[in-house]
Each structure stands twice: as structure tokens, then as C-alpha cells.
């Protein structure tokens, strides 16, 4: 058999151009399909996209809203990036976020009048809540070999039911009954003015100060991944746990840390949501998490765990969410923003997968040529 020429590696510039073209092509296809769905039901797709842009960026004060929604998404996604790097699959952010928000609500409401100290305690409580919830999963993983995928998934429902129960009894979360309050079950006390996160105001756009913290967190994670021994060990563990074990990286120790940090991040996101004011008006309610946990997980996985990508993706997801509020004026149902989002996610999955397959083919061809 005549061995074929081993394919020469194309230039990096060419590779990048191909990847960029693929991404753009896939995004265009996704937007095109959404436009077809809108037109097929008698709506105007130009009006829909314009409303989405107005609602997320162009209208007065809207990009502040978008940032407010992006904050918890980035925090959840950064945590997810850490556990994915260590090769662990945590899909229970929704529950961890719920627990974090509940813990934050418990502490925050009781510490009214303490000012900034209360805010710090509230955020720490949020981290603790999320970390406990993820800790159960990692404990069962290393103690009883229960796959963390299953426990984190199952614990979501347990978290939402547990917090729902907490909202039914006054010694946990339920606001004490008052005459002036309209009768509404299952709602927590509102967070006092002095224990809320301060809000920044930039050209008429206001958003909580946690936005700054989030950018710093993303930078820290980036440095940890690129430049730290700890990040390298995590990566080693994720790529090949046996090699990591041989090199002295304890999978129990590093894996547990990865899970705790991941859960803590989700919990912190919940605390940010509760004390930031963009969600639920400083009150904790059932269904408070509002799918942010699931979306944060999606952000991390679509951005392929890269901190910069995470910030960009989270901002776009938040933009779609904020923009959907402006759809009512166009007469098109606001669910179309979900459709656009899901199609974009699916579209963004295609290019890396195709590139990966191409690379595998090339590698296999090269091995075949050598033997």
C-alpha cells in the first residue's frame, strides 16, 4: 500500500480564519432559523431583533439591567469552569444557587442595621450554603463512589423543596405576618436598605457593585488557570486522574476543593442575586433561582471554560433575557428570546466539535502514515 503524504499542518492564521468563519456561519444560521419561526407565525423578525437590542443595550438604562443579570451568570460559570477543569461534572448549580440565596436571606434579614459587615456575612453565608450543597455531592463521590453527576442533579429538587419549606416557617425564612402586607404566602422579609449591595450609576445605567467583583474574579480564575501550580494540578487531574495520582496530586483533596469552590460560586451567585436587587426585589421566594443556575452552567460549557469567553457569553445571555422584556410591544411572544438563545447555544457547539473531529482525523491519518 502506498502511504499517503502526511498532511502538512496549515498555518495558524488560516486555522483561526476557518474557525472564525465557522462560528459566524453557525450564528447566522441560528438567527436565520429564529427569523423563520417568527415570520411563519406572522410576526416581523426585524421588529423582534430590534426590540431585543433595545431591551438589552440601546434603550435608556438597559445595559445596566443586562449587567445586573450577567453578574450571577458569570459567577456560576466561573465555578463550573473550575470543576470541569478538574474533570468533575457538576450540573446542580440551580440547587446550589438556591441554597446560597436562602442562606444569604437567613443571615441578611437577621443582621439588619449592621451595615457593610452584614453584607459581608450575607455573602459568606451564600458561599457556605452553596458549598455545603456541592459538598454533599463530593463527599458521596469520594466516600461511597456515587457519581457526582447524579447527586448534583438529584439535589436540585431537594434544594428547591427545602427552601420552599423554609419559606413556610417563620423561624427560618418566612416574613412575620403584618397587617399592612398583602396576604402572600412563602415570601421572605425584604432586605433592609443598609444591608443591600450598593449600586453604581454610569450614564443612567445602574447596576450592583458586585459587577466589579465579578470582573476581578474572572481575572483571578484566568491567572489561576494559566499561571498557578494549583491550576495546573487541577488540569492534570481532569485530563488523566491516574497520571495526576502518580505525580502526587490527591484526587480526593483537589476534587473536593473543586466541587466546594464550584458550589460556593453558585451560592455566591445566589447571594449576589438576593442582595443586588435585579432579582426578586430583595425578597427570597420559591423559584427565586429563575433558571440562572442552569443558564450559568450553559454559559460555562459553551464558553469552553475560558474566563474571557464566559464573561462574553454571560453578557450575551443576559442581553437576551433583558431584551425579552421589550418584546411585548412587537406583539411577538417573549418566549422567542428563549428560542433564539437555545438555537445560539446549539449553533456555538457545532464549530468546536467540527474542528475537534478534523483534528482527530488528521492525527489518525498521521499515525497511519507513520506505521
Amino acid at each position, binding site marked *: 500500500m502506498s502511504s499517503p503524504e502526511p498532511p502538512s499542518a496549515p498555518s495558524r492564521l488560516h486555522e483561526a480564519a476557518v474557525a472564525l468563519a465557522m462560528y459566524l456561519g453557525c450564528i447566522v444560521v441560528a438567527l436565520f432559523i429564529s427569523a423563520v*419561526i417568527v415570520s411563519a*407565525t*406572522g410576526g416581523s423578525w426585524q421588529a423582534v431583533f430590534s426590540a431585543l437590542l433595545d431591551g438589552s443595550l440601546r434603550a435608556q438604562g438597559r445595559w445596566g439591567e443586562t449587567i445586573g443579570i450577567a453578574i450571577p451568570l458569570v459567577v456560576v460559570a466561573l465555578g463550573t469552569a473550575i470543576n470541569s477543569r478538574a474533570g468533575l*461534572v457538576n*450540573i446542580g448549580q440551580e440547587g446550589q444557587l438556591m441554597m446560597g440565596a436562602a442562606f444569604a436571606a437567613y443571615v441578611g434579614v437577621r443582621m439588619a442595621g449592621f451595615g457593610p459587615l452584614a453584607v459581608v456575612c450575607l455573602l459568606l453565608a451564600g458561599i457556605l450554603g452553596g458549598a455545603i450543597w456541592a459538598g454533599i455531592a463530593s463527599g*458521596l463521590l469520594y466516600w*461511597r*463512589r*456515587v*457519581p457526582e*453527576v*447524579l*447527586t448534583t*442533579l*438529584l*439535589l*436540585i*429538587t*431537594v434544594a428547591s*423543596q*427545602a427552601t*420552599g*419549606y423554609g419559606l*413556610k416557617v417563620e423561624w427560618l425564612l418566612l416574613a412575620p405576618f403584618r397587617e399592612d402586607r398583602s396576604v402572600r404566602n412563602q415570601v421572605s422579609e425584604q432586605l433592609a436598605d443598609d444591608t443591600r449591595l450598593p449600586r453604581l450609576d454610569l450614564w443612567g445605567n445602574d447596576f450592583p457593585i458586585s459587577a466589579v467583583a465579578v470582573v476581578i474574579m474572572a481575572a483571578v480564575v484566568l491567572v489561576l488557570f494559566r499561571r498557578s501550580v494549583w491550576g495546573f494540578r487541577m488540569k492534570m487531574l481532569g485530563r488523566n486522574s491516574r497520571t495526576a495520582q502518580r505525580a502526587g496530586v490527591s484526587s480526593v483533596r483537589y476534587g473536593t476543593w473543586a466541587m466546594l469552590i464550584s458550589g460556593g460560586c453558585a451560592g455566591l451567585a445566589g447571594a449576589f442575586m438576593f442582595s443586588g436587587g435585579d432579582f426578586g426585589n430583595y425578597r427570597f421566594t420559591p423559584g427565586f433561582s429563575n433558571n440562572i443556575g*442552569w443558564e450559568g*452552567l*450553559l454559559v460555562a*460549557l*459553551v464558553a469552553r471554560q475560558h474566563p474571557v469567553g464566559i464573561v462574553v457569553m454571560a453578557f450575551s445571555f443576559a442581553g437576551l433575557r433583558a431584551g425579552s422584556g421589550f418584546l411585548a410591544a412587537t406583539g411577538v*411572544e417573549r*418566549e*422567542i*428570546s*428563549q*428560542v433564539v*438563545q*437555545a*438555537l445560539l*447555544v*446549539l449553533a456555538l*457547539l*457545532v464549530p*468546536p*466539535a*467540527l474542528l*475537534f*473531529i478534523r483534528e*482527530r482525523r488528521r*492525527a*489518525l491519518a498521521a499515525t497511519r502514515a507513520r506505521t
Partner: protein
Amino acid sequence: MGDFASAVGDVVSNDVSYSGAMRFAALLAFAALGETIAERAGTLNVSLEGMVLGGAFAGALGMHLTSSVSAGLVFATVIGLVVAALQANMSHRLTANQFVVGLALNTLVLGVASFLNTSIQPVSRAAHRLAIPVVSDIPLVGGAFFNQPWPLYLVYPLVPLTWWLLYRTRWGLEVRAVGENPQSADVSGIDVNKRRRQSIYIAGLTSGLGGGYLVLGQVGRFEDAIVGGQGFIAIAAVIFGGWTLRGVIGGCVLFGTVNSFRLTLPTVGHELNSELLSAAPFVVTIVTVAFFAHRTHEPSALARPFVRGLT
């Protein structure tokens, strides 16, 4: 505690609670049977929720267009299959992360279904009850099993069919091999990702049918929140059942019973904490998986993608 016992007594002696439990269990079983096959092949199929929801909407739409329940069920199955095709080809042909694909599909189906629901507003109604003579007269449980809307009966043949497919055919053996050790399966000439795709198609078929049953056999008309996380409960039932058919059916019955228990309790005049009651099956599942690990064994390659040459 005595209170609890009397509450249980009241519910157990009430035949309404049995037929309610059966109706919830049937929906879970439709979805869980397919999911069992998919998980045995190594996919933790998160898009189950979307498949059921898609099936439910398609069922309502089919009924709206043809005003026939059977046509609605066919529509439901087809849409379940379409969602499955997306999941299967994205995750086991393109090798994209199966959770991202599943979650995105759930959002997509929910968005499209509720979008189309408001613009089309399909008119549908529940199928008629079909009492099977003699057996439906058995006291307490007879009505639950044999006096139900007729689409529910489709779940009965599905159980032995799944068993036969998974344990008595070469295809089933290959599916189990693929979920247990894909590298060995690949070396012995099985197309790993093809078997995984096919197993997801089966999950799409059964859960689409389940969605059709939900809208045409139980609720009568489509609403956005009609599935309400029951797809995820079905996944939990599969885990609870330890990936064996007997266990999965047991899990569906248990979860369905708890669900109807929660709804029947207030009608027979008892207050019980509904949150703790709905969380209980999940806690029980985690505990069983954790402490009876020697009896339950998950497919070793569950949720791990297969790419030839990479371990």
C-alpha cells in the same frame, strides 16, 4: 406519628389515590423506560424533559388538526423522535457535550412549544375512559389499572418490550456493552456512537409517546408548565431503580404514588408537609445509590463521551 398513620390509612383506603398514582406513574414510566435504554448505552439524557414536552405539544396539535387521539399520539411520537435526533447527532456524532445539548434542547422545546401554543392555540380534549371488563371490578386497585383513559394502556406492552429489547436481543447486549466499556465494544466491532444514537431514538419514541399520553390521556389540553420537571423525576426514577427494569418500574410507581399522595391528602382532610413529601423520593434515591452501591451499579461509561483513540 399517629396522625401520619391515620393519614396513610385514609389515603390507602381511597381508590381515587390509586388511580391518581397510576396516572402519574404511567407518565414517568413512558419516559423512564426509554431513558433506561439510553442510560444503559451511556447517555445521561437530560433532554428527556424536552422530549416529553415536545410530545405533549405535538399531541395537542395533532388532535387539533385531525381531531383524533391516535393521530395525536403519532404526532407526539414523531416530535419526540425529532428532539431525540437532535440530541443524538449533536452529542454522539459531533461529540458536543451531552449536557449542553440536552439543556439547550429543553429551552428550545419549551420556547418553541409555548410560542406556537399562543399563536395556534390548539384545541384538544382527553381521550375517553376504557374500562376493561371483569378485571376493572377488582376492589381498590382494579379501577387504577384497568379503568383509565385508553392511551395509558400503551405503557403495559412497553414494559415487556423494553425488557426483550434490552436483555433478549443482540442489539440490547451491544447497547449494554457500549455503556459499560465502550473501548472494548469498539474493538469487538460495535459502532459505539451508532448504538448510543439509536438508544436515544428509543428514548425519544417512548417519551414523546409519554408526552402525548400526558396531554391526551391525563390533562386534556396543553399548557406551558404541563410537564413541570417530571422528565427530571423520570431520570431520578431510573437512578433509583439502579438501571434495572424492575427497579425503574418500582421507582416510577413510588414517585407517582408520592405525587398523588401529596394531592389526595388535602382532599381526605389531612395537612402534611408537601415539600418534605416531594423531596423524600430524591433523598431516598441518593441514600439508596450511596449505601446499596454493591447492589446498584451504574453503567461505567455513563455520561462519558466516546471518541476512538481517546480513553
